[in-house]
């Protein structure tokens, strides 16, 4: 079972939900939480677990071999990303702009640009009883999240069978990295806020999920903070509301201190129980 936890906009509490629900589920189930917000993974702040494995993740980029190069200029011409630049009699490669398409390397007439692996990020795997936690982090300066996300999902799928509940903490927004995360998921939980901004961004996220033909439900975070428009919208469009997490300064405070909230606040725990039931029911195929 693979579940992506996503949100249209940043700062809606996506990480709060994913870390808490993962820990709560792990009290009774086998759970893997994967932080795929690879530009800014911060789930680890909330998860206490022991280091189990660490791997560097690589992407392929061309490396200039000065001795073979005739400075013909083809590499620069075929690169659509400005990652290969000919400056006088030097060929420069900008790793963070390179999409690893191999065009420059394979179209070079003298094989002067062989592809070599460079580190683009690091995958870290932690364990705590029933909970496996995996995060990947892009190296500073690397901009392309999709290849690292794809490799991380491969790692998870190779290591864990489908009887594990796999929770993917997705980056915010509706761009390529989000699609990379959600396209592999069985269903998607969208976390939103009951505000006009939250509703606007939720609608964009819903459009994306419909385009990808994904089953999804909504968690309203900070319920009571704003108005009822998000809830009305979900009811009107028959979108399941999985849980409503109350707005409270107490929750915000525990969050800012990097603490798991369901262990401190009972009304929050009730909502996690709802999410848990929803997930377990969908695993049993009740929703299908």
């Amino acid at each position, binding site marked *: 079972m693979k579940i992506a936890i996503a949100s249209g906009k940043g700062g809606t509490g996506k*990480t709060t939900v994913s870390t808490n629900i993962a820990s709560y589920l792990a009290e009774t189930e086998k759970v893997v939480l994967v932080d795929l917000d690879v530009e800014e993974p911060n789930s680890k702040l909330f998860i206490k677990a022991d280091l189990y494995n660490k791997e560097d993740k690589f992407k392929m980029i061309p490396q200039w071999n000065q001795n073979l190069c005739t400075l013909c200029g083809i590499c620069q011409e075929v690169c659509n990303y400005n990652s290969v630049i000919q400056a006088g009699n030097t060929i420069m490669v900008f790793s963070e702009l390179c999409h690893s398409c191999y065009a420059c390397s394979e179209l070079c007439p003298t094989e002067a640009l062989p592809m070599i692996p460079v580190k683009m990020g690091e995958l870290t795997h932690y364990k705590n009883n029933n909970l496996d936690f995996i995060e990947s982090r892009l190296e500073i300066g690397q901009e392309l999240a999709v290849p690292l996300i794809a490799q991380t999902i491969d790692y998870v799928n190779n290591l864990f069978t489908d009887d594990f509940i796999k929770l993917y903490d997705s980056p915010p927004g509706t761009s390529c990295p989000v699609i990379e995360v959600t396209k592999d998921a069985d269903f998607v939980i969208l976390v939103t806020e009951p505000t006009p901004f939250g509703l606007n961004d939720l609608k964009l996220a819903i459009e994306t999920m419909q385009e990808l033909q994904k089953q999804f439900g909504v968690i309203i975070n900070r319920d009571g*903070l704003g108005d009822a428009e998000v809830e009305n919208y979900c009811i009107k469009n028959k979108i399941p509301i999985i849980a409503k997490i109350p707005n409270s300064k107490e929750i915000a405070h525990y969050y800012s201190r990097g603490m798991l909230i369901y262990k401190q606040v009972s009304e929050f725990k009730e909502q996690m129980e709802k999410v848990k039931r929803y997930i377990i029911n969908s695993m049993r195929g009740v929703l299908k």
Partner: protein
Amino acid sequence: MKEIVIISGKGGTGKTSVTSSFALLAGKNAIIADCDVDAADMHILMQPDYEIKEDFYSGELAVINPETCTQCGICADICRFDAISIINNKHVVEPLSCEGCGYCARVCPVNAIKNIDLKVGQYFISNIKTGTKMVHAKLGIGADNSGKLVANVKNEAKKLALKLNKEFILIDGSPGVGCPVTSSLSGAHFVVLVTEPTLSALHDLKRVYVLVKKFNIKAACIINKWDINTAVSSEIKDFLKKEGILHIADLNYDEAFTKAMIQGKAIVEIEDSEVGKILKESWETIKKNIS
């Protein structure tokens, strides 16, 4: 004419709420540009009329001409993104997987593939409730914000500011630390960093400030919800002091922000709001520091 950019690094720190407040305070003197196109929200508070709409193109996409394609399969062999599949015995490009690298078009023996400009969304020029104009955009599904899109929105804003003789351009900047935020900052006169006292927000603030420093732009910081965690707030203040960033305000955690948003208003439009008052002072401070 002065270009002021509001950025945060992390999402959800209140950047757009702060920007819209400044937009109200600047009134007719400013052109507004929403460069946070991944989660463009300024329009909710600004009542735009979408006067001018233009399609926006960024990046490329391969297209196979079924008439000339001989189904030789070379394109599918060299594609590193698995973007070319065979459907009904024909090679086709899967648009969401294609990265527009153009390699397939270069190796096709019969020139059946060409790269077309990819439509990623629309941008708009609108009249807004403050009696001025706003440039904003909406991205399509799976489309990425890019340096080009941000530059485009800013260019339109700048043209309008020059033509209409405006004093300021107020830019709701892009999130993150990548190419779009670089483009948001390029050419700016002043940066306002909006942050909150959480460990992740502080972490992002430090990363985005590296860019600000590279561009030699004068920076100021507003700590939103500072009272949620005063320990992290002091950590932020230490960072500001060390870097010589002007600390202009601490805003209380205040649900009036959201209450105003629900009425389609910026917080400064709410009478007697404490946070609104502080933001008015902040705007004065910014104006003083910019000239």
